[in-house]
């Protein structure tokens, strides 16, 4: 039995209102590839952030090579031989490969005040050889390289740093590495990882379960902040993993299913063959009044880009959007708003609100033209409007003049919703509407969504979990790699389980 190189025992981590990790045990052995799977929101990224020292756990022990450690930050982790490679790559684009490889650690190549670039290049070549990039000229600028190369260079950097600091058997965490790779590149990556396994351990995070199954020595499944399973190679197959990932269903009332009204009335939004090159293609949808449609898919599925096109912040390459029969061209958010579409963004603080301004200003942003007496704005009318929406949306705030920064996440979200309702948006796009909101406020948002749908608004929603998507929507569209692959009805009383759906998603 190989000795564990990294061990987490009883790790718990919470944020205001959310318990992200609940007493998680994780073991990474020497010379193994550990696959880590779980839905969005299961806690994978929080767990990894604890592993690389970005977060301090609230409870639990962290052992490296048998000894307990307290990491002060990611630098400590890297010095101890634990590092993470992000899929977008973390390299300075205007510097060369070797500059990035040895960034901040060039002391070994210094001759007096000058850098011996020849020696640096040799060392770079040797290191790159280890990751299969022996033919890459270390002096090339990183900026023009494809994502696959960048990932490899980052792996090379981590390996080199662990050598530099004398940490044996480094732990490399790869976060969704294959999302940006072509198939041939994926094969090459797996080959290299197989080689690297001989002197390092790898944590491989991916949604592509077939890959995880074929590559990993062990698979850990995370759900709702808890490790639900730790499977050896050969004991796991894709269907069983899927089952473990989604687990039990919540009570129907959690999503206020009894209030689900279903589509009625005319088609409010009609999308035909919408495409955005490189992101998604052939997206079509007929959204009726009162209907709630969920867009489901992984990162890279294209659903966020669809919503951006609907919101007007991105122009599609082809296809059409019609609002109540009238074909519209959105060249900016202003056009989408004029057509009655409102987007509630995933990032409230930066894209939904002006947190330094007060509640009233945020609510009235879109409807100032209605608050005029003559050519000037009337503070009285503004106040009236603000108070109306505060009460209607049940926003808890001491006064309309309170700065939004002081409100809770849930109340901030309500302000954003109020803004669009005040503007009489007929079609709402909700991007992760309950993210970062505590359970009580979530319920209020679900209720609100039901009320809006009953009032005839059409809603497109993208949720944090599959469960939430299924629970809220009348039907869901599953997107994968830029295409809509399946439409699944979710009528009241006849909801599919996440298990039924997940097969199409991953």
């Amino acid at each position, binding site marked *: 039995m190989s000795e564990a190189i990294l061990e987490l025992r009883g790790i718990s981590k919470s944020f205001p209102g959310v318990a992200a990790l609940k007493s998680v045990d994780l073991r990474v052995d020497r010379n193994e590839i550990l696959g880590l799977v779980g839905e969005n929101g299961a806690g994978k990224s929080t767990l990894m952030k604890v592993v690389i020292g970005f977060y301090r756990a609230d409870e639990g022990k962290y052992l490296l090579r048998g000894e307990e450690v307290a990491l002060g930050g990611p630098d400590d982790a890297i010095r101890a031989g634990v590092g993470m490679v992000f899929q977008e790559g973390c390299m300075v684009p205007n510097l060369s490969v070797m500059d990035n490889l040895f960034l901040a650690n060039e002391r070994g190549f210094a001759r007096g005040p000058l850098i011996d670039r020849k020696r640096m290049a040799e060392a770079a070549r040797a290191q790159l050889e280890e990751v299969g990039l022996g033919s890459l000229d270390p002096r090339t600028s990183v900026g023009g390289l494809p994502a696959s190369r960048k990932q490899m260079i980052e792996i090379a950097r981590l390996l080199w740093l662990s050598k530099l600091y004398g940490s044996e058997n480094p732990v490399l965490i790869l976060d969704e590495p294959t999302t940006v790779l072509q198939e041939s590149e994926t094969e090459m990556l797996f080959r290299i990882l197989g080689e690297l396994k001989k002197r390092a351990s790898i944590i491989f995070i991916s949604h592509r379960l077939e890959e995880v199954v074929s590559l990993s020595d062990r698979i850990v499944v995370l759900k709702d902040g808890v490790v639900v399973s730790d499977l050896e190679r050969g004991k796991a197959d894709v269907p069983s993993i899927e089952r473990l990932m989604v687990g039990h269903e919540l009570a129907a009332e959690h999503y206020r299913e009894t209030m689900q009204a279903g589509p009625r009335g005319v088609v409010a939004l009609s999308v035909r063959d919408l495409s955005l090159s490189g992101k998604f293609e052939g997206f079509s949808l007929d959204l009726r009044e009162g209907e709630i449609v969920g867009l489901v898919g992984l990162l890279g599925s294209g659903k966020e880009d669809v919503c951006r096109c609907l919101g007007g912040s991105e122009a599609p390459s082809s296809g059409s959007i019609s609002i109540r029969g009238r074909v519209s061209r959105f060249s900016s958010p202003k056009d989408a708003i004029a057509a009655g579409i409102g987007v509630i963004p995933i990032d409230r603080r930066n894209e939904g609100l002006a947190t330094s301004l007060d509640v009233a200003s945020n609510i009235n942003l*879109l409807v100032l033209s209605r608050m005029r007496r003559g050519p000037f*704005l009337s503070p009285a009318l503004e106040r009236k409007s603000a108070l109306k929406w505060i009460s209607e949306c049940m926003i808890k705030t001491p006064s309309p003049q309170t700065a939004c920064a002081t409100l809770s996440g849930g109340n901030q979200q309500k302000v954003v919703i109020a803004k669009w309702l005040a503007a009489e948006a007929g079609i709402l796009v909700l991007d992760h509407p309950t993210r970062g909101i505590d359970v009580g406020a979530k319920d209020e948002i679900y209720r609100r969504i039901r009320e809006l749908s009953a009032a005839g608004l059409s809603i497109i929603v993208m949720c944090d979990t599959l469960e939430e998507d299924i629970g809220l929507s009348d039907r869901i569209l599953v997107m994968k790699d830029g295409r809509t692959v399946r439409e699944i009805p979710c009528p009241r009383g006849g909801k599919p389980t996440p298990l039924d759906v997940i097969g199409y998603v991953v």
Partner: protein
Amino acid sequence: MKRAAIKPIYISMGMFAVLVGAFTAGDGNFLSAYNAQTILNAVAILLAVGLGQTCVIMTGGIDLSVGSIMSLVSVVFMLVIGRLGAWAFPFVLVVGLASGALNGVIVSRLRIPSFIGTLGTQGILLSLAYLLSASPLSVPENSYGVVDIVNGQVGPIKSVWMIGLATFMVFFVLQRFTRIGRGIIYIGANERMSYLSGLDIDKARLVSFAMSGLGAAIAGIVLSSTLYSGYPSIGGVYVLNSIAVVVVGGTAMTGGAGGMLNTLVGALIMGILNNGMTVVGIDVYAQQVFLGILVIVAVAVTFDRTKLAIIK
């Protein structure tokens, strides 16, 4: 919005009181009627150019060309006053608006940072002023009446102060009670969100620069009128002064907070400071040292660091 404006404004008002006290202690003449008049004259000019600069700073930008606009306006004013009489006033106001609009177009259409864009236009406009007249121009004899509209008084109240007050009212109403003024605040507070909410960022930016040009033009008119002359270097020192007026009043350079009321207090403070330092006998250039330090301190205090992750 109001909350954010009140705290710094109390600080500024406190400063104001302290300064008056200090300077009076330094030299009894400070509070004389004559000196008070001198101060208020200067304040009117600082106020006009400061109010314009406030518009730009509230969107998160800066206008380094206000001095050149003032210079250009003063020269043009002197050139046309003979021929246009009282129509010279609206004429040069348009010149100011156009200059500001030029800034707005360059910054918003070409999408370059405002401090570089206005650095560029400052050169262009100053060139224009020098081309029109390299040497100082005086008010032609027969136009004294026109200029004295500005220099005169109605009862005990000087016209200059009324102009200052009127300018303040215009800008205040713009900021508080018009959509475009509100748009400027939204954009300064969160430009990304404003864009996604359909606000016309380019238009708001254009208007903010145009208003800055207008403010500079008014300041230029008043200044030339009180001096009975116009020349291309007249506006030089007002870039620093306009920024100082805005930040000392408590408006943050990060945008979205503060406002015209702050600038009013800032103008009063700067007017007193400038005058007081001279009365007490501090060298004009030592004053510049103080101003520089004052600006740095004021910005450091009001800057909203949460807005910018990376300070460049």
